């Protein structure tokens, strides 16, 4: 019985060590990506560099107010060109747009993205331009989702 307990202890200890090694190696990888993206051929390599370039491009196109907001909170707000409604675009590549109510609280989620596999900066920039220049079309193609933010 004592021998069996010792073997279980050694087994768990070895598994824990392997898990720590795996975790540390993943943390060191500069090109970590979302698991769903790893099946797209050629998408993974240089992802970190592309992600940074996309964010640079986004920041060039943001207004000073939007830039400051994004820098501080990882989201920025835009005004729909047709309705005048305010939308919050959070950092991400999908399900990242929230229509805000009069008090600035997220109410409805909108999901539309440029076709293809683009980095977050590119996706957010396309969403911003779409809402600011052709809101109706953007919302026509969009799907809605329940906003859990408040």
């Amino acid at each position, binding site marked *: 019985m004592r021998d069996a307990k010792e073997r279980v202890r050694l087994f768990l200890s070895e598994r824990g060590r392997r898990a720590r090694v795996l975790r540390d190696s993943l943390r060191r990888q500069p090109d970590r990506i979302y698991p769903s993206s790893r099946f797209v051929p050629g998408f993974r390599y240089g992802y970190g*560099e592309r992600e940074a370039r996309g964010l640079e491009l986004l920041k060039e196109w943001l207004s000073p107010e939007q830039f400051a907001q994004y820098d501080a909170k990882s989201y920025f707000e835009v005004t729909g060109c047709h309705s005048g409604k305010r939308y919050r675009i959070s950092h991400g590549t999908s399900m990242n747009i929230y229509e805000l109510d009069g008090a600035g609280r997220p109410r409805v989620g909108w999901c*539309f*993205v*440029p076709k*293809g596999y683009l980095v977050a900066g590119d996706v957010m920039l396309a969403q*911003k331009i779409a809402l*600011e220049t052709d809101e109706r079309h953007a919302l026509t193609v969009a799907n809605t989702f329940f906003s859990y933010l408040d």
Partner: protein
Amino acid sequence: MARQIVMDRTGDTRHNFDAKNADALLRAEERFRELTGAGFTAAVRTASGEAVVKRTFDPSAEETLFFPRLVGG
């Protein structure tokens, strides 16, 4: 030097061209037509920083950004 930036799976592809060169301008206009014909949206920034969508080629634009057709996510 004028620039056309095309969002794609590589991040973006940038095409720099001399807007004073007639051949370069012609190639840029052809690229504009090909991309918008394929569903890309072309946008430029005004002096105040506001984004404006362009349906036709603007030879005076210093930077034109193209992003793919929007789809529901």
